[in-house]
Every structure is written in structure tokens, then in C-alpha cells.
């Protein structure tokens, strides 16, 4: 059996099993705090703004966006890739670390998975609306239609993307829900409220913790974990092939799939960091999400940041080494210098340089600084997508087609709207669902009890 002595205690405070249940489920039984209601209000307003922009986009068309013939992909695709990247955290956390038998994941995986589900939902809004005629959305399904029967093009990354994101949403939601079944049963058996008993009892699906249930539960976790590990790598690789198969300078390169997958994990882990620092502070969960947990996430961030820096430099080097004038123009006269200098350096500094500060233990253990760095990483990752989408498209082969791109209010509102959906979803999650996997923490906790 896995022994955690090397890593030190994963749960502090020598908790008893019932204490763990009580600590983690406490938000369920207390009145919502003031900040929670304020947060819900603000995020609802943002959501309203988002819904308004969706309404405008559907009723008036893509003409309400700033995209044009040259820059055909604007904020919609930037934000789509950004959200999908954040969504990779849950899978990276729960699944890679599950397969690698890393027990320290158990305090964080639930929140990371919740984030994934909401973020992938946010991401899906953008390409769906970017299709323009959303009522013809079903054309993308492979079904024998009245036009032929003409089937979809299985060689198109855009079609792969649609299937991959649907599969990703399905599998991350099922993995998340599967993990919650035992915890719902815990709430069902502990609550005194009749309403809670009925609602959580419904979702607990009759769980009792019997041998047969646990055995199949673990079996299913490993099945889903194994296939989702493949999926998480392929989803973002497919997103990157949306770019890489087109003959645009700066896009048409084989580095894209690994570069995108690593970038996704980077932004995902940064978002986990942001969220966990808030979560453990407001709900006083420092005994479960310990400083050493955050320290491990910080170390992963340093490592991934190094990969990101290497990827950026590789791209620049290859642009120069290829001798291709269009590649050289895009990288040296459009990104490093030129029209989009600010965005390029924002990306480079936020992603490749600032996270390196966490090599120092002093900085790593100062959570205020770590919190700021984690937010800067997500800002940097947003600029990375901006760089990829806009700089390549705006100035490519034919100078007569060159154009610039500025987002309109509708596009900005839609982005704010998805942030609203994300915050709204996370707040509901904090209040109504155990934020930490109770049964998994109990299983991890027993190692500490045994040692005594």
C-alpha cells in the first residue's frame, strides 16, 4: 500500500472521521455568508450581460463582432481556447495524479473537477456561436441527412474538435459525479433536514458503501481515469490542429499539439491555485489543503513554466532557422517587435519569467504573491492565445489583405458573461457540494492515524 511518510501528513490536526465529515460539509448547514451573496449577485449581473450579447449575436449575426475577412477568428476563439485550457486542470489533477497513485491529490481534485466542468461549458459557448447560424448546429452531427445522405468530413479538425469537446464534457462530468456519490450518501445519512435528505438521497443513488459498490466504484474510476488521460492529451492536441493544419505563418508547425497541451495544463494548474487559495481561506480548510499541497502545485507550475519558455524559444528559433520570410516576419516583426509587441511580451513575461520566481522558497510560501502569480499566469495564457490567433491572421502573405482587429462591446460582454458563469458555478459548488472529496480524504487520513 502507498505510504505517505515521505511527503509528511496530508491532513493536519489529527482529525477523527466524523470530524472530517463535519468540517467539509459545514457550509451546507450554515447560512450563506455576505461575500457569497455579493459574489452571486455580481456574477449574475455578468451572466446577464453575457446572455444579452448572446442574444445580440444570434438575432443580428456575427457582424456585431469585430472580426473581419482577414482576422476571421477573434475573441471567440481566443476565449474558447483559454477556457478549454483552464478546464484541463480537473483532468490533469484527478486523472494523471490518480493513475500515478499520488494521494495528495485527494484534497484538491474535487474543486479542480468542478472547475473543469464549468470551464468546458463556458468554452463550448464560443465555437457554437461562432458558427453563425446556431439553429443549423446539428449539421455537424454525422447523421444521414436529407442532403444526400451527405456525411461530415472526418478529416476536419473542426469536426474532431466538436466530438472531442463533447466527449470531454461528458467524461469530466461523469468522473466528477462518480466521485460525489459516496459524499452525497454521507450527507444523506447525516443531515436532519428532510429536504436535504431527499435531494442528496436522490443523487446518492442508494449508495451504502458496501463491498460490491466500492469495488465497482474503484474499477470504474480506473476505467474513466485511463481513458480520460488519453482524452485530455487529445482534446487540446485537436484544438491545436484547428490552427496547425492551416497554412498560416506562425500556425503551421508541428510543435503546436504538445505546446497547447502543456499550456492548457499550465493555465489549469494556475486556476486551481487561485481557487484553492481562496477556498481554504474562506472556509478555513487549511488542515485539508495544507501549505504543502500548495507548495507541490507551485513546484509543478515552475516546471511547466520552464516547458512553456522552451516552447516559445523553440518557436522563435525555428522561425529564424527555417529562413521562411513569412515566418520570420510574423515572429520578429509582428510579435517581438511591431504592432503586437505588448501582447507578446505580456505573454512571455507572465508565463515564462514571473513563475520562475517561485524557485525561491520565501516567495513560494508567501501565498499573497503566489496568488498574484497564479492570476498573472492566466492573464499571460490569455495573451498567448491572442498572439496565436490575431498576429498570425492580421498580417499574413498578402499585404493588400492586411487588417487589424479590435473587439466590439458584444465580444467583450460575452467574455465577461462566461467569467460570470464560471464564478456563479463555482459559488454554487462551494455552497451545495462538498468541496473536498470526503471519502478520499478519510482514506488518506488513516495513514496518519496508523503511524501513531
Amino acid at each position: 500500500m502507498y505510504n505517505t511518510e515521505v511527503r509528511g501528513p496530508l491532513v493536519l490536526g489529527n482529525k477523527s472521521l466524523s470530524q472530517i465529515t463535519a468540517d467539509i460539509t459545514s457550509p451546507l448547514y450554515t447560512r450563506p455568508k455576505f461575500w457569497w451573496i455579493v459574489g452571486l449577485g455580481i456574477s449574475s449581473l455578468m451572466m446577464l450581460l453575457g446572455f444579452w450579447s448572446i442574444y445580440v449575436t444570434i438575432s443580428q449575426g456575427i457582424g456585431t463582432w469585430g472580426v473581419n475577412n482577414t482576422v476571421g477568428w477573434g475573441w471567440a476563439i481566443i476565449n474558447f481556447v483559454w477556457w478549454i485550457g483552464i478546464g484541463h486542470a480537473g483532468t490533469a489533477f484527478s486523472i494523471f495524479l490518480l493513475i500515478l497513485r499520488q494521494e495528495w491529490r485527494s484534497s484538491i481534485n474535487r474543486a479542480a473537477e468542478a472547475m473543469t466542468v464549468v470551464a468546458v461549458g463556458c468554452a463550448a459557448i464560443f465555437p457554437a456561436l461562432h458558427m453563425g447560424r446556431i439553429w443549423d448546429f446539428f449539421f455537424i452531427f454525422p447523421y444521414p441527412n436529407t442532403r444526400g445522405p451527405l456525411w461530415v468530413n472526418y478529416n476536419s479538425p473542426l469536426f474532431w474538435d466538436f466530438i472531442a469537446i463533447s466527449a470531454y464534457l461528458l467524461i469530466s462530468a461523469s468522473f466528477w459525479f462518480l466521485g460525489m456519490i459516496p459524499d452525497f450518501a454521507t450527507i444523506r445519512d447525516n443531515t436532519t433536514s428532510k429536504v436535504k435528505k431527499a435531494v442528496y438521497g436522490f443523487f446518492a443513488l442508494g449508495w451504502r458503501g458496501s463491498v460490491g459498490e466500492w469495488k465497482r466504484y474503484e474499477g470504474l474510476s480506473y476505467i474513466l481515469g485511463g481513458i480520460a488521460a488519453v482524452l485530455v492529451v487529445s482534446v487540446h492536441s485537436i484544438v491545436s490542429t484547428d490552427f496547425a493544419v492551416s497554412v498560416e505563418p506562425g500556425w503551421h508547425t508541428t510543435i503546436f499539439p504538445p505546446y497547447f497541451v502543456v499550456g492548457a495544463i499550465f493555465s489549469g494548474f494556475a486556476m486551481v491555485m487561485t481557487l484553492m487559495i481562496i477556498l481554504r481561506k474562506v472556509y478555513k480548510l487549511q488542515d485539508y489543503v495544507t501549505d504543502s499541497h500548495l507548495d507541490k502545485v507551485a513546484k509543478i507550475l515552475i516546471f511547466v513554466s520552464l516547458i512553456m519558455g522552451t516552447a516559445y524559444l523553440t518557436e522563435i528559433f525555428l522561425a529564424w532557422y527555417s529562413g521562411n520570410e513569412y515566418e520570420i516576419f510574423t515572429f520578429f516583426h509582428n510579435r517581438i517587435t511591431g504592432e503586437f509587441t505588448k501582447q507578446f511580451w505580456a505573454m512571455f513575461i507572465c508565463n515564462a519569467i514571473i513563475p520562475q520566481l517561485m524557485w525561491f522558497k520565501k516567495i513560494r510560501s508567501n501565498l499573497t504573491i503566489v496568488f498574484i502569480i497564479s492570476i498573472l499566469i492566466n492573464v499571460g495564457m490569455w495573451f498567448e492565445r491572442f498572439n496565436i490567433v490575431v498576429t498570425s491572421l492580421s498580417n499574413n502573405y498578402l499585404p493588400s489583405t492586411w487588417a487589424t482587429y479590435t473587439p466590439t462591446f458584444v465580444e467583450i460582454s460575452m467574455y465577461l458573461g462566461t467569467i460570470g458563469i464560471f464564478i456563479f458555478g463555482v459559488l454554487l459548488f462551494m455552497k451545495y457540494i462538498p468541496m473536498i472529496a470526503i471519502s478520499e480524504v478519510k482514506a488518506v487520513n488513516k495513514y496518519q492515524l496508523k503511524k501513531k
Partner: protein
Amino acid sequence: MDSAYLLGVFDKEETMLSAFRKMKEQEIEIEDVFTPYPVHEILENHGRKSRITIVGWLYGFFATIGVLAFLFYTAVIDWPLNYGGKPSNAFPSFLVITIILVIFSITILSLFTFSWRANLWPSNKKPIYHPGATDDKFVIMVNKEKADAARASSVMKETGAIEVIEK
């Protein structure tokens, strides 16, 4: 006879495990064990088998064949289209979509299998023998008809059960 089961309630994993081992030794048949988290010794030694991982593999195997057959039928037989001169049966480029659709199929099929085999579905009315088993109690259940209840009860008490209930 009203009560069909004998429940030994333990508050520690260790005491429950020692009772479990002793009962195995004395060949007292254990109907079920309810625990708040998976206890691997019990999952391995209880004797109940689960083939869900094998079934999951089979789903993957047949889904692969199914998806490739579907792609071949639609893209080659039913309505071959010329995409920039590429062959209709573009097998390497079908692989990506095959992987994703296979993952999709395995997920859905194994979720339903899990729900069916583990007997878990919404508004399920399975009897809850001891509500503490999802919180901090470990419960060993013995079927009185299949095992000697008196002997089981004495083993449970000996090894430190906090209570032995008939239900």
C-alpha cells in the same frame, strides 16, 4: 423471525479488520461490509468479484471495430466525397476521431454497466442498515440464515465491536 441480519458496528478500521480476519478464519460467511471509504484488504478478501474493468476493455475493443466500420461505411461506401484529392478511406486521419468516439462509447457504456451492476440509480430504495457507515462507522453484516449468528456475534464482541445489532 423478524431480523434476518446481524450487524457488527466498529468505530475503527483496525478492530473491524481483525473481526473480519477472525470470521474468515472460522469460516463464518460475511454477507457484506459497509465502510466510509474503500478498505482494500476487504475488497480483495471478501470474495465478491467485479469484472467491470474487463468489460470496459471489451467495450473499447468492440467500439473500435464499430467506429471504424461506421467511418468506412459513411466515407467510402455510402457517399464518397473528394476532399482535395485525398483517398476516401483516409485511415490515418480517421484514427483521431476513432480514439475520441471509442472513449465516448466506453464512458457511456461503462457508466450504465456500473449503475446496473452496483445497483445504483436515482431514488433507489435499498435498505440502509446503518447510517453511520457513510460517516465514521465500519459495519460487518452477517446473514443469519447462512451463518451461525451466535458465533459471529461473539467474534464481533471479542474483537471490539461497539455494538452488535440485529436487523
